């Protein structure tokens, strides 16, 4: 079947429908032969950003590798909602071992493929932010420094959602989780803590590091495909809003991800061998309040009398990202 002719034009948005694009620029997900690697029927919540991100990322990796892909999965939401037999949603060879070892298991798979002369088979490891930035950090750093031929995908929803929303080292300052409750004098998660995993990955000087969000799925697919052009350790950090943990409507997932980027709180960029090679510019900068207000995890900042000083500190973090990565065009930055 040939592609459908253009029937309409979208105006007033920054998104482009697939049907407005030439065939070669259309998303992997728009292809008739998409692989449905993470198939429908799984048990993710409505509006789950991780399910969306994983589906696009893995299908793109399948497309880029001519379907020669194996995945190692950390314990977490993704593992729980996509299994068990006979209801596994995975259409690819997939293994879950433990919470903290997905990167090492992937190293083992890659080693096995190499020793068996099957270097066409590529390996991804995937986990949430807890399995990546906290408990799986040792194995991840080891995989990075050995430059093992693995693409690690971190689906970052900024807390331990599978266990009922507890703080991780990816939880943003001021956010409410069940272990950073804004009670008494506390205003949620503390400032001055947390890990910047993409920066840590870059410090290993691995061939490729990127960030992405589920608001820009073309960009996510392109980065996964690009990552597959390299051999060695690669890392993509994908922001995946969680309606349950963030407290936004399940129809708001994409919008939350877009606001995270457009406020500057989540910089979207690419890096090779430790150096930034490209950034996704902010198209229409918004104050962080636009991002914070729809999420109940930040609701305590807006209850009377309000906490403008906390919001100002979060704005400073966004402004620092914008400066560091040059997220605004010169004219906009100066205006």
């Amino acid at each position, binding site marked *: 079947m040939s592609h459908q002719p253009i029937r309409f034009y979208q105006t007033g948005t920054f998104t482009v429908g697939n049907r407005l694009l030439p065939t070669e620029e259309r998303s992997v997900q728009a292809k008739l032969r998409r692989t449905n690697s993470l198939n429908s029927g799984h048990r993710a919540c409505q509006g789950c950003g991780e399910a969306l991100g994983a589906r696009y990322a893995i299908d793109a990796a399948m497309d880029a590798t001519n*379907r*020669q*892909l*194996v995945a*190692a*999965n950390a314990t977490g939401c993704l*593992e*729980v909602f996509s*299994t*068990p*037999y006979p209801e*596994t949603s*995975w*259409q*690819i*060879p*997939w*293994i*879950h*071992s*433990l919470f*903290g*070892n997905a990167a*090492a*298991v*992937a*190293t*083992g*798979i*890659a*080693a*096995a*493929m*190499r*020793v*068996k*002369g099957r270097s066409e*088979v590529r390996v991804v490891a995937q986990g949430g932010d807890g399995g990546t930035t906290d408990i799986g950090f*040792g*194995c991840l*750093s*080891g995989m990075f*420094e*050995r430059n093992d031929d693995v693409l690690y995908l971190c689906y970052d929803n900024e807390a331990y959602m599978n266990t009922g929303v507890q703080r991780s080292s990816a939880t943003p300052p001021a956010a409410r989780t069940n272990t950073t409750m804004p009670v008494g004098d506390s205003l949620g998660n503390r400032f001055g803590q947390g890990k910047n995993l993409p920066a840590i990955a870059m410090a290993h000087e691995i061939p490729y590091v990127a960030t992405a969000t589920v608001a820009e799925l073309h960009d996510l697919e392109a980065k996964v495909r690009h990552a597959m052009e390299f051999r060695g350790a690669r890392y993509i950090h994908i922001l995946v809003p969680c309606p349950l943990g963030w407290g936004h409507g399940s129809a708001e997932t994409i919008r939350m991800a877009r606001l995270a980027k457009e406020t500057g709180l989540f910089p979207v960029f690419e890096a090779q061998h430790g150096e930034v090679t490209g950034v996704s510019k902010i198209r229409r900068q918004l104050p962080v309040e636009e991002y914070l207000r729809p999420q109940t995890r930040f609701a305590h900042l807006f209850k009377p009398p309000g906490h403008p000083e906390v919001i100002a500190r979060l704005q400073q973090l966004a402004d620092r990202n914008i400066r560091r990565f040059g997220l605004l065009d010169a004219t906009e930055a100066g205006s």
Partner: protein
Amino acid sequence: MLKQVEGSAAVAEAVALCRPQVICAYPISPQTHIVEGLGRLVSAGTLKPCEFINVESEFAAMSVAIGASAAGARAYTATASQGLLFMAEAVFNAAGLGLPIVMTVANRAIGAPINIWNDHTDALSQRDCGWIQLFAEDNQEALDLHIQAFRLAEELSLPVMVCMDGFILTHAYERVDMPTQEQVDAYLPPYEPRQVLDPADPVSIGAMVGPEAFMEVRYLAHAKQRQALDLIPAWAGEFKRVFGRESGGLTHTYKLDDAETVVVALGSVLGTIKDTVDEMRAEGTRIGVLGITCFRPWPTAAVRAALAKAKRVVVLEKSLAVGLGGIVSNNVSAAYPGSPDDVHAVIAGLGGRAITRGSLRKVFGQAVDGKLDPVTFLDLDYSIVDRVLKREREQRRSGPIAEAILREIGVVAAKIG
């Protein structure tokens, strides 16, 4: 071919003859020489194709082995002591997933207090993890058990741990008969996995399993280990046919026929025990030895048969079930046809404390005379412990525990004799 080599070197060479495809290495004494030896063989191109991976922890070592094994490669690693505990989560996981990884454990004490010397606390702490656990009596057997371990693991799709006493075996230079590549190839067929990660035939491995099936999955692991009780002696028999010597099996017996007193033990201490038994036999004592080669699965029937005529059993073990007494002795009691009151635990050699013939003679003599306590701590200096306990009663801030003991001893030196 006969060689005079270090135990670790012998094991490294034997493992290499088994053609492992992925080896994960993380240093911990006293295992280190084994992976060093294998690393040299891979670097030199003697062992190929093989991926030798220097990992960042024992947890990663076992995790890399899990990935490699699930992807269809023959995987091997080695560890000891704290390393085994650090990888414990992955050790259970490898067994639960049914992956035929082979691992050497160079048995060493567990801290605190930190101690690098030999006992069996490390391996026995993992006795319920689902791995088959084999204990080598000497370096020849350590070498041979590794060859048998790969065969056993891959046939049952279960991981196998080969335990050898740290330093006592790993660092001892002994004569061993090193098999040829042809012999090992004749005994050990190429790895044919029961489950494999392959894009041509995608499967999900390690899915969530709820109450509806978990019991059955666990029982299956138990049933497979019980199958091993038949396979281990059968393959020890085939091993003899190919290699021309007896090695492995479930148990070793020594002068048991008319023995009224039977000493049960694991590992290298069996040599000292046999020498002691020879001395006592020469004086007319009817005493014999039962060596446990296969600790998991526990060879209930073989132990029961071996102890059928024993009036009393002395289990000499390099491990301690803190708050209970013996670990091995509890297993022996479950298999002993007589009264459990006639099974005596002798806790010996913890943290490398020397086990001497003199001490063994004394304790075996007490057993023969019916004067041995249910649990005995061989060569324990109670006077030191009593003084420390007294100080603890008198002083709230009595200080760090191990340091108090060392202060009482007065000199930092091995207590021998």
